[in-house]
């Protein structure tokens, strides 16, 4: 069965390491914060200028001047720091964030990613996503494997305007954990109960299937 939003977050959380500074994109990536393993600490960076983001506030704590990059009201944890947008992106562009998790419309076998516009139809803008994918060494893209119409989002070549070129190496979809190497997707893990055949069928770009593809367990 396809992974739930929560399972996607749980699987991403297994990539965390103690002491990681992490930037979590809007949507599913945000949920990763709920699944940080016991005994491990990570610190969340929000690109609007906050390192050490805490949980949402209580009603009493709500403060219009304290938001995250998704414009949600948040809190800070002890040891947090707050800075301007240039300093925030200096941190990101300079490669100081250990892990970035973000969503996408499409990725391809060259590690390209498209996530910010569908010409003639939807223009969200790139926000900080172009900086994040250009600055981070370690990026996980989370997205559904295929559109509602069954169109694969893992392509030979992205069809939409790019967010970044050749920067993605790890993709977690609702069906599979995939790595990108030497111009191909490599199927590393599959969602519980999802067959290799289904993943192959729903992957448009070249997919390498190792002999053994373990099933994720939760």
């Amino acid at each position, binding site marked *: 069965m396809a992974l739930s939003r929560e399972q996607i977050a749980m699987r991403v959380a297994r990539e965390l390491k103690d002491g990681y500074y992490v930037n979590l994109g809007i949507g599913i990536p945000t949920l990763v914060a709920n699944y940080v393993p016991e005994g491990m600490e990570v610190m969340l960076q929000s690109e609007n200028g906050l390192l050490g983001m805490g949980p949402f506030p209580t009603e009493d704590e709500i403060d219009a001047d304290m938001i995250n990059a998704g414009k949600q009201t948040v809190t800070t944890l002890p040891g947090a720091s707050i800075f301007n947008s240039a300093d925030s992106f200096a941190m990101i562009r300079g490669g100081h964030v250990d892990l970035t998790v973000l969503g996408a419309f499409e990725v391809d076998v060259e590690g390209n990613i498209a996530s910010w516009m569908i010409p003639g139809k939807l223009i969200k803008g790139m926000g900080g996503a172009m900086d994040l994918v250009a600055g981070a060494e370690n990026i996980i893209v989370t997205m559904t494997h295929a559109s509602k119409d069954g169109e694969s989002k893992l392509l030979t070549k992205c069809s939409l305007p790019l967010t*970044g070129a050749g920067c993605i190496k790890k993709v977690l979809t609702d069906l599979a954990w995939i790595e990108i190497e030497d111009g191909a997707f490599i199927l590393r893990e599959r969602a519980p109960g999802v067959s290799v055949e289904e993943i192959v069928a729903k992957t448009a770009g070249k997919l390498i299937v190792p002999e053994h593809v373990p099933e994720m367990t939760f």
Partner: protein
Amino acid sequence: MAGFDKVVSSYDEALAGLTDNMTVIAGGFGLCGIPENLIAQIRKMGVKGLTVVSNNCGVDGFGLGILLEDRQVKKMISSYVGENALFEQQLLNGELEVELTPQGTLAEKMRAGGAGIPAFYTATGYGTPVAEGKEVREFKGRKYILEESIVGDFAIVKGWKADRYGNVIYRHTAQNFNPLAATAGKITVVEVEEIVEPGELDPTRIHTPGIYVDRLILGTFEKRIEKRTVRS
């Protein structure tokens, strides 16, 4: 000490000299830390043909969004259209020129504008539509694009506290683009929640030194919250 007293007493005075077709750099991220009264004053003045540099364009009916309603904006330089329906509609219709700029590049362009750096290289946007028409150059085996700085005729900024000399501090994440905008305006106007005497602010924690501030005004703020999220 009149020379350093930046305080003006009316919003008319605060934006005096702002005319059609000027470039205005605005601080704020979403609706957080936006110079809401200065924006309202721009609407009231009715100037047209503005180029507005701001990460977002407010929302429908609040913040910079109100300048779209009256078609006062010719061009936006922003990173995010997001959920602003009027912004997206005017953009898709071709009524509004938009230069979508990555958020970090936008912040750095403002900083560079204030810092006398005409251009810098960044990997951000390489290989994307953002790179179109821009020089690509390799440093140490990696490709970068050349981005030019931004300077505004006016910068409009929302601070928390300031002293009469124009030294400003920002509150929490309402800092965001504000100190950068402040450096990049030929005329920088700051509105704040509180004005204190020089010496009351700790010199080592001033975010915007008064040298960048031309006019300072005391305002009252709605501080609308865009996404009110709470934990149970």
